[in-house]
């Protein structure tokens, strides 16, 4: 292995890990920045996406869940990963619409603490529901055969390097994320829809006085954020095991991404997520480093590294790297 090759692998892994955070953070950040809604149930959307994706992709056997007792010892469509990737986002989009309408909307004018309580409660309900129905065990996604291979990478032309292999499927995750991010960015920045949402952030009554129904754009915006979280669930799950608790686990780096990037900023979410992904992957792959008699294993410090990054950013730029200073949420 060459240094260049290792760095390329590191970059790809870091971007891919970061991509999951980016997908999650965009919805979280927009909902927080424009609708001023603190959504602790955003991770629940990720779990829902991951489980629906799992059930579409493959067949699973249910060990300790109610569903087994109700006559479904095995469950799942076995349609493959690509099918999940296509079907899950619209489903979670609709789940997001329902969440906006029945959970978020009644709480827009309530204090942050109320919003946190209700969404945190919802996240726990979802977690326990999955726990009860499908059981506590962890499932693994098979990396889809369509995109399971590797790309041999041997460095720039003419430079003799021993080759490394880049996982095709990681490149896929990065590409899918990039496409979606660009699409959402374009919608928010260049359409009337985005304009109305931004105007509504400041003065919803004036928007309505201009004849514009603000509830509809809010609803759709929430749905888009949810759909992205669903995509994150599908593309993120093969990386780790799936269990009912992953929604809560992933919420922490997702919020840190928002905080580092700046609330309400899509570009900030991209930057924040990428940084977190890179820091995490770098620390994990450093492994054990020996300096004379001192040897440190960096892998367990990956999580600490993310927090350290957040602390440094917040101390130097409290509004986040690309956040505008006015946002107070």
């Amino acid at each position, binding site marked *: 292995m060459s240094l260049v090759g290792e760095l390329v692998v590191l970059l790809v892994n870091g971007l891919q890990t970061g991509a999951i955070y980016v997908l999650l953070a965009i919805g979280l950040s927009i909902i927080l920045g424009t609708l001023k809604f603190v959504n602790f149930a955003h991770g629940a959307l990720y779990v829902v996406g991951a489980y629906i994706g799992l059930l579409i992709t493959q067949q699973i056997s249910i060990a300790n869940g109610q569903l087994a007792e109700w006559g479904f010892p095995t469950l799942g469509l076995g349609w493959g990963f690509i099918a999940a990737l296509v079907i899950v986002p619209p489903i979670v989009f609709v789940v997001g619409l329902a969440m906006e309408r029945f959970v978020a909307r009644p709480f827009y004018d309530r204090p942050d603490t109320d919003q946190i309580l209700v969404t945190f409660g919802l996240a726990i309900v979802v977690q326990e529901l999955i726990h009860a129905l499908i059981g506590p065990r962890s499932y693994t996604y098979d990396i889809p055969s369509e995109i399971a291979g590797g790309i041999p990478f041997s460095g720039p032309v003419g430079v003799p390097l021993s080759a490394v292999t880049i996982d095709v499927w990681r490149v896929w995750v990065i590409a899918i994320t990039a496409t979606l991010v660009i699409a959402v960015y374009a919608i928010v920045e260049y359409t*009337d*829809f985005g*304009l*109305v949402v*931004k*105007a509504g*952030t*400041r*003065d919803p*009554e*004036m*928007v*309505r*006085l*201009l*004849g*514009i*129904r*603000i509830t*509809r*754009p809010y609803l759709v915006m929430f749905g888009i954020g949810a759909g992205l979280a669903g995509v994150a669930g599908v593309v993120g799950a093969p990386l780790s095991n799936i269990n009912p608790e992953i929604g809560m686990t992933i919420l922490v780096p997702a919020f840190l991404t928002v905080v580092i990037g700046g609330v309400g900023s899509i570009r900030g979410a991209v930057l924040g997520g990428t940084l977190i992904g890179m820091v995490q992957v770098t620390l994990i792959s450093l492994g054990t480093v020996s300096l004379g008699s001192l040897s440190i294993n960096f892998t367990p410090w990956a999580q600490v590294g993310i927090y350290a990054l957040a602390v440094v950013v917040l101390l130097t730029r409290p509004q986040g790297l690309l956040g505008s200073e*006015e946002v107070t949420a």
Partner: protein
Amino acid sequence: MSLLELDAVDSYYGQSHILRDVSMRVEEGEICALLGRNGAGKTTTLRSIAGARPPEVRTGRITYKDRDITDMETEDISVLGISHVPEERRVFANLTVEENLHLADVVKNRSNTWGRDLDFEHEGQSIEQILEDFPRLSERQQQMAGTLSGGEQQMLAIARALKQSTDLLMLDEPYEGLAPQIIETVEGAIERIRDEGTTVLLVEQNAVAAMKIADRCYVIDQGSVVFEGPAEELRNDEETRERYLGV
């Protein structure tokens, strides 16, 4: 049938009873001025008509184009052709001048108004006309509205309303904070859209300026209508002017 009719309207902010038995008519094609002292209830009247809440209209009826709009939502009233410029320069500080002006046209994009009744006859002023009227805005189209001066923000709020397609334009203290020369421009624009057929309901502290361009006037005091008649009549009615307007 008048374009807009208020029939014995009573409006409240919570427990406080503000408008008492207010009846008014605004005729198509006129400039109607609503005058009165501070706290008389002028803003409350406009907000009641526009469906902005609070206040709450508890009794009485507001009819516009033969339709009962008393309990309709603000945005639905707006697309029937009532545009309301509230007091205090409500521009979107986080958007550019150009984007603020563009918001006046969003209702023409059917994805937002899909499934709702639209009913306006008079096209708004063209962007060219508006930029000609307000050269200061023209020079600052890419500037964030929040960084405009107070007077420029007021111009922007008025310009945005002029750009809306509307049959009844309600202006709450449009001259507030504007230099005399700009007031003339605004007066000119109001008279022009009146001549093009749009009806105007004008609320002003500056009663003299309002009476100058108004066809008819209402004077309101402590939430009740105390005078109704042609502007000419109010100009000649010294007692009413002194008692209720202080001029």
